[in-house]
């Protein structure tokens, strides 16, 4: 297996894991400060609505991002970790993956809109799954950029 741009791959891997850890919020570390003012919540303050009812909870504290955002970040992290194995599939037409990303993105928008206008009620799990699909399919865009099997 040939690795290209290993420093860039490893740097993104590290950054994505930092994002996921911070997104999990203060509950992961049993922080005693009230969760609305924890630094994790402040860091994502302008990036996510952070509504507690729409977030997963750890140790009695909501995560710093909503369930959909958590799905996106963790899905991207999972996809990034799996890139070496997935590149074995020798998918050369990245255009297909781009189409999948657009499709999943639209699916997420429709789900959010339907819930907002009261057409249906989505759940923590459904939002996480849809977000996860978006994150992981986005990571797959980079298939073949970092790992090549001879």
């Amino acid at each position, binding site marked *: 297996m040939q690795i290209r741009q290993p420093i860039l791959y490893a740097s*993104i891997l590290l950054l994505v894991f930092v994002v996921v850890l911070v997104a999990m919020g203060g509950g992961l570390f049993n922080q005693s400060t009230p969760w*609305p003012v924890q630094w994790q919540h*402040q860091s994502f303050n302008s990036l996510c609505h952070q509504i507690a009812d729409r977030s997963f909870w750890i140790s009695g504290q909501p995560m710093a991002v909503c369930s959909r955002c958590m799905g996106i970040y963790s899905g991207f992290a999972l996809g990034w970790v799996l890139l070496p194995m997935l590149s074995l599939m020798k998918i050369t037409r990245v255009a297909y993956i781009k189409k999948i990303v657009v499709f999943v993105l639209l699916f997420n928008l429709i789900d959010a809109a339907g819930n*907002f206008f009261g057409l249906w009620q989505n759940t923590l799990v459904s939002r996480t799954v849809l977000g996860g699909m978006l994150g992981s399919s986005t990571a797959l865009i980079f298939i073949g950029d970092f790992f090549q099997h001879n």
Partner: protein
Amino acid sequence: MDEVAEQQAEQNNQPPYWTSVGIAGLIFGIIVFALSLVTSYAMINSEPTGSLFSPVQLLGVFVCLVGAFGGMLAIWHYANEYDISIKLGKGALIGLFTGICIALVTVVFNQIWQFIDPDMTQKLIDSTIANFEASELPDDTKQQMIDSTVQSMRDQNSIGTQLLYNLPMYGILNVLTGMIGAKVFGKKEG
């Protein structure tokens, strides 16, 4: 000339990306600032419900992660302007600078707004206190939450605190969207 030197020369010959970074940073900085302003005034003008989050924040469901797409816009502009191929590393770098630019623009506009409406922070604090007072939390927990939240809201007025919280996340997320942009919008080599 060896391969490394050739690549170096090619990189040096590429046009500067600062215009694209500036445009995308300014646009997304204004969008993020405007959204935070809408949320703040909606909270100030809403009746205290006892909930830590107001229903108007549900609007945020549609704008989650909006500030993370500056990197993609910068790459789109750069690729369209010069019709060149963009390597992933360069996309990440442009995304990083765009993220920094978004954070800086947001901070600058926040500071300007302090002159336009100097009472906004105090009104926001009053609204938050009223909200906590209306909640069904035990009194000691309620007081603890009020004290720490008010302190945090006052701290957020300082430029240093705003940069400390905004720079890393905007930087990282725009690095990712910059790379995605390079993959999607960069002209294929060869």
